């Protein structure tokens, strides 16, 4: 068994919802997934991208058995997912992005102890498990605070902690950093990266951020209109950077992997973060004052997302 997730021909449509007046129906069924094929290797980290309504959340919810598919097969760790069986409950952690999905009047620790107790094993075990995952997401210092008194970022981390209860082997995350500021986003990403490296987790997460996909995933899968539009390997350590220069200072010199724009005011560099640091030192030594250093989206992924449907 080398695949954590295997999905073949997965289709799902939703019946048309009621109109504003419930007895006035209501249009056509909405096809959310139209034959998705996907394979995720063990311990792989995969980003799921695509426009709104592409079927990303639907796919996640089918994998954690909250939704039933209309057609297609799903296997988790080599076992077909027939229904909401023990397999899902044992192996899959689901992290939704809704911070309201916690009990706000309970403490962080009580929330986790409750959800942990649903696996059985008694209160003492539930508390130990709660403490363990609170440590993992660095919330141990806030364990006794009520959820309503935590910041949005802390609540998101608490949702992540809940997904880690019972040490799942597959973690499904639906926009885990939605509504977080850049600092909190980077902090949560660091924790996720650390956990995937140390806990041998397989990660499938929905995101709208190409940069986040680049930072967290080894592969990006793009869904569009319920189908896999394509996928891109992000294993490459080399990133693309754009940098400008102060016109009053020296011009860009000739350097490896550095492409200077026609007007000479900006350049694009392809390399690892360490190579960028080396280049900056090199440019500084050559009298170039650099400005506006920015990482560019992965070119293939960017092209895939921008390509017409």
């Amino acid at each position: 068994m080398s695949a954590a997730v295997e999905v073949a021909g997965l289709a799902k449509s939703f019946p048309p919802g009621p109109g504003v007046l419930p007895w006035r129906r209501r249009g056509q069924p909405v096809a959310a997934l139209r034959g998705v094929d996907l394979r995720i290797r063990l311990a792989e980290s995969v980003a799921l991208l695509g426009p709104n309504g592409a079927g990303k959340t639907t796919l996640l919810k089918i994998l954690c058995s909250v939704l039933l598919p209309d057609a297609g097969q799903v296997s988790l760790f080599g076992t077909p997912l027939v229904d909401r069986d023990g397999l899902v409950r044992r192996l899959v952690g689901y992290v939704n992005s809704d911070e309201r999905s916690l009990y706000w009047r309970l403490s962080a620790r009580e929330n986790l102890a409750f959800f942990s107790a649903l696996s059985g094993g008694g209160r003492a075990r539930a508390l130990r498990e709660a403490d363990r995952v609170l440590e993992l997401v660095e919330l141990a210092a806030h364990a006794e605070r009520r959820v309503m008194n935590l910041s949005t970022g802390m609540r998101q981390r608490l949702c992540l902690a809940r997904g880690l209860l019972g040490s799942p082997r597959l973690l499904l995350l639906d926009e885990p950093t939605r509504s977080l500021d850049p600092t909190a986003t980077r902090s949560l990403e660091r924790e996720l990266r650390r956990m995937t490296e140390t806990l041998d987790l397989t990660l499938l997460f929905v995101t709208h951020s190409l940069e986040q996909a680049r930072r967290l995933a080894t592969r990006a899968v793009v869904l569009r209109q319920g189908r896999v539009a394509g996928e891109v390997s992000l294993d490459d350590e080399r990133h693309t950077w754009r940098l400008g220069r102060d016109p009053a200072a020296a011009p860009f010199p000739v350097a490896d992997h550095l492409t200077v724009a026609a007007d000479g005011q900006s350049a694009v560099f392809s390399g690892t973060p360490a190579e960028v640091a080396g280049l900056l030192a090199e440019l500084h030594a050559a009298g170039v004052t650099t400005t506006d250093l920015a990482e560019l989206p992965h070119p293939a992924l960017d092209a895939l997302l921008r390509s017409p449907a």
Partner: protein
Amino acid sequence: MLAFLRRDFLIDASYPWSLASQAVTLVGKILLWFLAAGILAGRPIPGVASGYLPWVLIGTAGAMLFSTALSAFASRLRQEQFSGTLEILFTSNTPFVRAVLYSSAYDLARVTPQALILIGLAWWTGPHRAVAGHLPLLAAFTVLAFALFAGLGLLAAAAVLAWQRGDPLVTLVSGAATLFGTAYIPAEVLPGPLAHLPQLVPLTPTLAGLRGCILGTTAPAELLPALAIVGLEAAVLLPVGLTVFNRSVEHARRSGGLSRY
């Protein structure tokens, strides 16, 4: 189940005066019926052999348990739907139907001591005619009544999953049962065709059994038909409730209704 009880107790207790207000409401109910019974004292009431106060106190206890069992499943389910925890509960290791049943355990645990206080007062103010033969019957009525109420509660919860709104149904059934289920008004005093309605309400034979057993106003053998009716209703409604609820869960998983509200 302890985890659910603990969760809901902590949430309930986190609201200032929540527990105190429940106690005040109970005292208010007792006072109301004490005064009403005082007004009716000395007047014969058809269908009430024990005096109105103990009769209505048992009716109130039964109606409280009935309405709570009926509404608890639906209201807890709806709360979890609103908050977004329903999907998380669904992915947990606890079977979903059990999670829904356990979610309402606190509401029943909170109401049961209140009902026992009312029943204790009814026994204290009643005619003390109960005999040993009433005790097993009382246990049987209690168990079957809970099974019957749970069946109805599951039907209400299924309505919440199917239509996102179960409360109109719960209010209708609960209100009708309270009004026509002989909780406060004996069937004999209802006017014209309305006098037949109590026979259709599941609460009626349950209350007849509870009153007969606790107050001893009906011989044990005469309570057996009421017990048979409650048993039959429970035997039908509990499996029907479970089946309809499980089907509504499947429907919600197909339609995406678990997180819709």
